């Protein structure tokens, strides 16, 4: 079942490339249909998932490279299932949003379907090598999206993105090899490594492996000081590419922390959790402050991503500090981190698509060139307002639930850091309000008004916001899935 979900999109992509006679509109609708089928399958997965059962659901475990005991091991639990769902939702949204895409639609669709396979595959991987394969392929796929369909400076930005994240992935690979060799018998299997806890009590080796993993994942996430690839990549990427990059690809990094770094190196993680907390707080504040200084709307959203990822890093760092002392706070912080991943995926995905709409209208992201759009494009203005409020963590939206859990969970562990991170919310509130005012309120600056959202734009963006509201108002359906997994993680980390 999981294998079908993972490989269906890439099969459709191969089909699109194999039948060049298919017209452009047929390609578009095939893409949308495939993404919708994918979402339906994931929905089925969710409905049939029982959070109470321990371990992994829908597990598949086949031999792959037995000489290094790496297997084709898939499975989902409460940490991965929500991310799988967000991935399916966002890819469908991008498929619909790209209905009006005209430039080389066939390759574009094939590339996105390929990326969907890669992202889903990563979230369900329970083997380090399999994880790495998907991790690296995500870089390749996104490189071609940015280089092929980006704006003017795309070639440079894509190169920077590739090189930077590739360095990260190789650091990750070093860490994986270290984990493999320290386990007895040697294995790349995540579940068996988690059982073994191979580096327990081995100070230097554990520290070095954790360092490699943290650097690799931090580059992907990205956190300060490894974030410099992100703003150019986001600014130059096409709207749908940015939405996937921010909504899904950044989660590959944070997911790696909760899936690999924390459970596989529990005592080392606890020992260095304070470093993680500091990195998290720095990301929160730096991301927010730099976002405040931006004039470019898309760049601003890119920096708020650094800010939002910072909350996740803060939460998992704090969780490491209190894993042994306060179980409840630990579980709360981890659940908050996972909820934040879901919430950020929905909200920032929507914001980047909205930035794409803005660019379509005015062919620039410079906020100074817009003004008073609310008069001529009320639906656009309304949706952006909702997204902005959701992003700054207003109650009633998913971001609030996530950040509330993160702060409550972390406060006991690191009161000072949490208080500092709290400032981040204030700053992001200020910057979103200012940006909104500049673009949508005040006297119109563009002659002849601006066309409002088209149907594909509205249909792709509005459901993302609706979901953010649903999670914000009725979070139980999501938390019921996440919380048992957070507890399991707590047991692993407190060993």
């Amino acid at each position, binding site marked *: 079942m999981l294998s079908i979900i993972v490989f269906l999109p890439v099969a459709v992509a191969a089909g699109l490339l194999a039948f060049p006679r298919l017209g452009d509109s047929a390609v578009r609708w095939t893409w949308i249909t495939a993404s919708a089928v994918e979402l339906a399958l994931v929905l089925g997965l969710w409905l049939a998932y029982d959070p109470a059962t321990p371990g992994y659901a829908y597990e598949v475990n086949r031999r792959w490279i037995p*000489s290094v005991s790496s297997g084709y091991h898939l499975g989902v639990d409460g940490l991965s299932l929500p991310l799988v769902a967000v991935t399916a939702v966002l890819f469908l949204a991008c498929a619909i949003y790209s209905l009006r895409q005209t430039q080389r639609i066939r390759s574009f669709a094939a590339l996105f379907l390929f990326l969907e396979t890669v992202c889903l595959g990563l979230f369900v991987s329970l083997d380090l090598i399999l994880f790495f394969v998907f991790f690296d392929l995500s870089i390749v796929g996104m490189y*071609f999206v940015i280089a*092929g369909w980006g704006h003017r400076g795309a070639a440079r930005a894509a190169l920077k993105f590739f090189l930077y994240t*590739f360095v990260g992935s190789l650091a990750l690979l*070093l860490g994986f090899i270290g984990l493999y060799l320290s386990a007895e018998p040697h294995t790349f299997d995540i579940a068996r490594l988690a059982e073994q806890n191979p580096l327990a009590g081995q100070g230097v080796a554990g520290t070095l492996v954790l360092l490699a993993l943290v650097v690799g994942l931090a580059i992907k996430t990205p956190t300060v000081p490894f974030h410099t690839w992100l703003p150019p990549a986001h600014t130059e990427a096409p709207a749908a590419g940015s939405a996937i990059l921010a909504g899904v690809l950044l989660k590959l990094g944070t997911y790696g922390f909760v899936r690999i770094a924390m459970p596989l190196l529990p005592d080392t993680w606890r020992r260095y959790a304070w470093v993680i907390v500091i990195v998290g707080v720095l990301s929160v504040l730096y991301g927010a402050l730099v976002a405040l200084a931006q004039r470019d709307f898309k760049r601003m959203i890119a920096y708020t991503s650094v800010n939002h990822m910072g909350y996740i890093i803060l939460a998992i760092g704090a969780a490491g500090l209190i894993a042994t002392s306060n179980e409840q706070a630990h579980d709360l912080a981890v659940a908050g981190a996972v909820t934040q991943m879901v919430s950020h995926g929905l909200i920032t995905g929507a914001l980047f698509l909205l930035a794409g709409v803005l660019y379509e209208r005015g062919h620039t992201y410079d906020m100074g060139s817009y003004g008073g759009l609310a008069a001529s494009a009320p639906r656009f203005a309304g949706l952006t307002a909702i997204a902005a409020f959701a992003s700054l963590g207003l109650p009633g939206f998913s971001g609030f639930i996530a950040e509330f859990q993160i702060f409550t969970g972390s406060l006991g562990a690191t009161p000072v850091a949490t208080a500092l991170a709290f400032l981040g919310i204030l700053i992001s509130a200020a910057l979103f309000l200012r940006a909104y005012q500049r673009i949508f309120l005040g006297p119109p600056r563009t002659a002849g008004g601006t066309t409002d959202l088209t149907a594909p734009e509205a249909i792709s963006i509005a459901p993302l916001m609706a979901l953010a509201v649903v999670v914000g108002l009725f979070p139980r359906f999501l938390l019921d899935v996440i919380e048992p997994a957070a507890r399991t993680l707590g047991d692993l980390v407190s060993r």
Partner: protein
Amino acid sequence: MEGTMTQELGLLLPEIFLAASAVLGLLLGSYLPRRRQWLIHVLAALACLAGLVSTVLDWPEPSTAVFEGSYSIDIATHATRVVVLVSVLLVLGLTADVRGHRRETEFVVLLLLSALGTVLLAGTNDLLLLGAAYLLASVPLYALTAFAKDSPGTEASLKFYLLGALLGVTMLFGIMLLSGVGGGAGYAALAGGIPDAPKAAVAVGVIAVLAGLLFKAGAVPAQFWVPDVTQGARPPVGAIVTTIPKIGAAVALYRLVAAPLGLASLDWPLLFAVLAAATMTLGNLAAFFQTDVRRLLAYSTISQIGYLLMAVAAAGRSTLALPSLLLYLAAYAVTNLGAFAVVCALPAARTLTDYSGLRRHQPWLALGLTICLLGLVGTPPTGVFAGKLTVFTAAFDAGFVWLVVLAAVNTAASVFYYLRWIAPAMRSNPTTIEHAEPRAATTAYLAAPASIAVGVLAGPILAVFQGNILIS
């Protein structure tokens, strides 16, 4: 005695097929009219296929050594045979360049002879045979380099020959010295004699022998010929010299380190680790700003040899060393030939800018090129990724953590120059390229999926390559 001789010859069928087809090809070639010379290609392909079949049928047999222990038939020899024969088959798909040429037969015969030399290089357990195999693997390549009789080719050939002759003589000196102080030319005898021999003599002898093998492998400090030959010779010859001799040389180095040097008191693995580090770094740095695609590929092959030497450094210290070396060789050969196949398919495109807009008229060729180049980077799930993963693991296991870190940094840096080629090729600029040579293009379409298949099937392949070399 007669009976065992015949039996031993029976174990050498792949080598015999290569030698016999070379001789037969030369004879046939002198009688066939020029338009029928393609028959020689068929003969060569049949010899390779027959060699592959006999290797595979022979595989389950336990490792044996023939001719009084001077030549071993073990996992390493079997694997080398398969990789070399498959490489020759792929190269035969690139030779449209010489079709109908006056010396078409010579081309194929020289290719077969150098392939035979490289297989012998890999299987030998004896310094004297090593010297002979070195010459057999080298001399045909000097001639092939100058095949077109144009000035870049002749110049490259001269350089190649002079360096090869110098290092060949050095190697012969080392062979003399080692067998003198070590009490014999066979590796088994050497393994017994070296620990008691004077250290300085052993050190000089080994370094002199290594000079020849490193020249064949195209590794630092004997890498100077690689870029000039690859750029100066015809593209199919470039494909040959950067692929086929390296396979035999790498396995020969491994054998040397694992068998007689494993017991020596000097720290040979460390020397190989340093050579590996220097080779990969130098290859990468030099490749950075190349504009000629063949020169770029030449430097990229140097860096690949650096990664391969990591497995040699890990010889005897990690059970994964030999399987990882063989897997990497197989993956590297297919992937490198795939990249060269694209170069051969577009003989007019010489620089990176010439590839601009390739995907417009040749989307599949552009895709094949992308797969092969990303494969050379080591992007999963291609074969070189599986090779790198296992080689890194072996080196890590052998205690060379610094080397693995350096290799990872080098890998990341290599992305830069491969992307300098991929990026223009995938753009949809107006382009001068419209026509591609069909046979070489077909080879690229075969090699690119094969390079992925080696990665996806890394499990079974590694299982087959599992084992030790035979010291007899």
